[in-house]
C-alpha cells in the first residue's frame, strides 16, 4: 500500500518486570481496512492494544502514528490522536443511562461560565440518531445501559468512538461473549465503520469471525507476530493452525469430532 498507515508498530517489546508480554510485534493499519489480530489466550493481544491505547508504555520498538514516531502519556493522548479503544469491559457503566454513557468524559455543554450545564436534550438526540444509524432503535436514551443486551452495548461503545472522531478503532474481542444474532450485528457494524474509511483493529480468537470482516490477518503467538496475511492468501484452516502455534489442531479437532 502506498499511503502511510495510520498506525504502524515495528519490533514492539513490552516487559512487566521479568514477564515479557510482547517480544517483537510488528503491524500496520491503514484507513478503510480491518486488520484482525489473532492469537491464543495469553498471546499478548490485550497488552498490545493497551500499548497502542496509551495505557502501557512500550519497553522498546517503534510506534508511528501517521508516519510520525509518538509516545502516549495517557489514554487521553491516544484519544486525541484519533485512536479509540473499545476494551473487553467496554468502559460502560451499567447503572448510567445510554446518553450519559455515550457522552461520558465529553459532555456537550450549554450556558456560560460557572453556569454551564449539560445539554441533555442534544445529548439524547445525538445518542438516538447515532444508534439509529447502525440500526438500533433506542426508544428511551435515558434507560440504563445495564438493560441493553451484550451486542447492543458493544454497538453503543463503538458508536461512541466513531462519533467522537476516531481514525482507528481498536476492538478487543467484541464478539467473544455474544450469540449468533448479536455477533452478526456487531460484525456488520464493523464492516460499516470500515467502509466509512476508518481503520479497524479487530481482536478475536475466532477465525470465522475474523474471516467475515477482515482484510488482513496478523497472528500473535507468545508475544511475537508470526506474520501478516491478506485475505485471499491464506485459508481458514491454515490460519487456525498458525494461531495455535503450529500444533496440529486438525488432530485435536478430529478427536473431538470436528467441532473446533
Amino acid at each position, binding site marked *: 500500500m502506498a499511503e502511510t498507515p495510520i498506525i504502524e508498530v515495528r519490533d514492539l517489546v513490552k516487559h512487566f518486570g521479568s514477564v515479557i508480554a510482547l517480544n517483537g510485534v510488528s503491524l500496520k493499519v491503514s484507513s478503510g481496512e480491518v486488520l484482525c489480530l489473532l492469537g491464543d489466550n495469553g498471546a499478548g493481544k490485550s497488552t498490545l492494544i493497551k500499548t497502542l491505547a496509551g*495505557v502501557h508504555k512500550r519497553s522498546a520498538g517503534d510506534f508511528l502514528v501517521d508516519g510520525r514516531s509518538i509516545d502516549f502519556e495517557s*489514554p*487521553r493522548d491516544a*484519544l486525541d490522536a484519533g485512536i479509540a*479503544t473499545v*476494551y473487553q*469491559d*467496554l*468502559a*460502560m*457503566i*451499567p*447503572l*448510567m443511562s445510554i446518553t*450519559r454513557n455515550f*457522552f*461520558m*468524559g*465529553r*459532555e456537550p*455543554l450549554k450556558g456560560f461560565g460557572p453556569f*454551564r*450545564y*449539560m445539554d*441533555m436534550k442534544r445529548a439524547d438526540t445525538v445518542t438516538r440518531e447515532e444508534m439509529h444509524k447502525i*440500526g*438500533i*432503535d*433506542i*426508544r*428511551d436514551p*435515558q*434507560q*440504563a445501559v*445495564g*438493560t*441493553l*443486551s451484550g*451486542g*447492543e452495548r458493544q454497538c453503543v461503545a463503538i458508536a461512541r468512538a466513531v462519533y467522537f472522531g476516531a481514525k482507528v478503532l481498536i476492538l478487543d474481542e467484541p464478539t467473544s461473549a455474544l450469540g449468533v*444474532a*448479536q455477533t452478526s*450485528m456487531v460484525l456488520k457494524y464493523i464492516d460499516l465503520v470500515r467502509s466509512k474509511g476508518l481503520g479497524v483493529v479487530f481482536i478475536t480468537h475466532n477465525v470465522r469471525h475474523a474471516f467475515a470482516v477482515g482484510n488482513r490477518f496478523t497472528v500473535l503467538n507468545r508475544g511475537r507476530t508470526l506474520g501478516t496475511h491478506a485475505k485471499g492468501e491464506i485459508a481458514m484452516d491454515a490460519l487456525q493452525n498458525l494461531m495455535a502455534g503450529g500444533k496440529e489442531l486438525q488432530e485435536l479437532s478430529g478427536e473431538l469430532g470436528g467441532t473446533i
Partner: protein
Amino acid sequence: MSTIYDVKDKLGRDERVKTSSLLTTLIRKPELGAVAGLVLVIVFFLVFASPTMFTLAGIMNIMAPASQLGILAIGAALLMIGGEFDLSLGSMIAFAGLVFAAALVVWHMPLAAAILIAFLVALVVGTVNAQIVIRTGLPSFIVTLAFLFILRGLTLVGLKWASGGATQLRGIKDVVEGSTLAGFFSGNALEGLFAWMAAHDMIDKFPNGLPKVSGVPVEAVWFVLFALFATWLLLRTKFGNWIFASGGDARAARNSGVPVNRVKTTLFVVTAACATLVAIITVLDAGSTDARRGFQKEFEAIIAAVIGGCLLTGGYGSAIGAFFGSLIFGMVLIGLTYTTIDQDWYLVFLGTMLLVAVVFNNVVRKRVTGER
C-alpha cells in the same frame, strides 16, 4: 428491553418493548422510596400525634434538626454516588467547631476570618482523606474510620488546650454580638416575610401583632438551597455526570477520560465543608462548642442518604432523596415528642428504616439495570 430485532408493529414500535409506563419512569427515580417513606411518616403522625405538630411552629421545630442533618446527608449522598464514604463526618463537625471557636475566643479573630479558617481546615481534611484513599487504594470506609478517631481525639486534646483543661469552649455569643455576618449562620431568616404575612393575617400572631413564628431557621435556608444546587449539579452538569461515572466504575470512567481522582477529592472536600457549615451553625446557636458535637452524625447522614436512594456500592442515588430522607429523620425525632410514644423508639426506627431502605434499593437497582 432488547430492541435489535426487526419485529415492529404498524406504528414502527418494537413489539418487545412495552410503552414506558408511569411506574417505570417513577421507579427509575432514586428518591422514590424516600418520598413514599415521608408520606407514610406524615400519615402516621397525623393519626397519632397531637395536631400542634403540624402547625407552622411545629414544622419549624422539625426543620431545625432536619436541616442540620440534611446538609450533611446531601454531602454524604454526593460522595456515596461518587463511590466513597466519609465516616469522619461527625468528628469533623467537632473538629471544625473547635477550630472555629478557638479562632474566635482564643485567637480573637473577627468572625469572617474564623469562618474562613474553619473552611480551610475542611479543605485540608477533605484533601487528606481523599489523597490517602486514592494513593493507597484502600476502601474509604477504613481510611475515614481512622479519621473518625483521629479528629475526635484531636478535638478533645485541642479543647483542653484551648480552654485550659475543660472539654468545652464558651463565650462565643459575646464575641459575635451584633455581627451581620452571624445572621447568615444563626437565628431566623425571612423575618420580614413572616412579619408581613402576620400583618396580613396569613399566619398566627400575638395580640401585639408580631408573628408567633418569627421566621425560618437559617439552616433550613442553607438546606433547601444546597439540596437544589446539588440536584442541579448531579443531574444537569458535566461534573454531575462525572460523579455518577466515578462511582459507577472508576476504571471505565478513567478510560473514558473522566478525571476520577479530581472528582473524588472534590467530593471529600465538599463533605468536610458540609460538616464545617453545620459546625458553625450549631456553635453559633449554642454559643459554645464541646467534644461530643456531631457525635454519630456520620451514620445518620449515611442512613439519610441511603433512605434517599443512594446505593452503598456507589454510582446511583440522588441529592433530593437525601433531602427527603433528612425530613423523615427530623419528623420522627421531633414527632415522637408530640405523641405518647417513648422517644427512645427513635433508634429502633432508625435501624429499621436503614434495613428497609437497603432492601428496597437493591430491588430498584435490579429493575433499573435489568438484572434478573
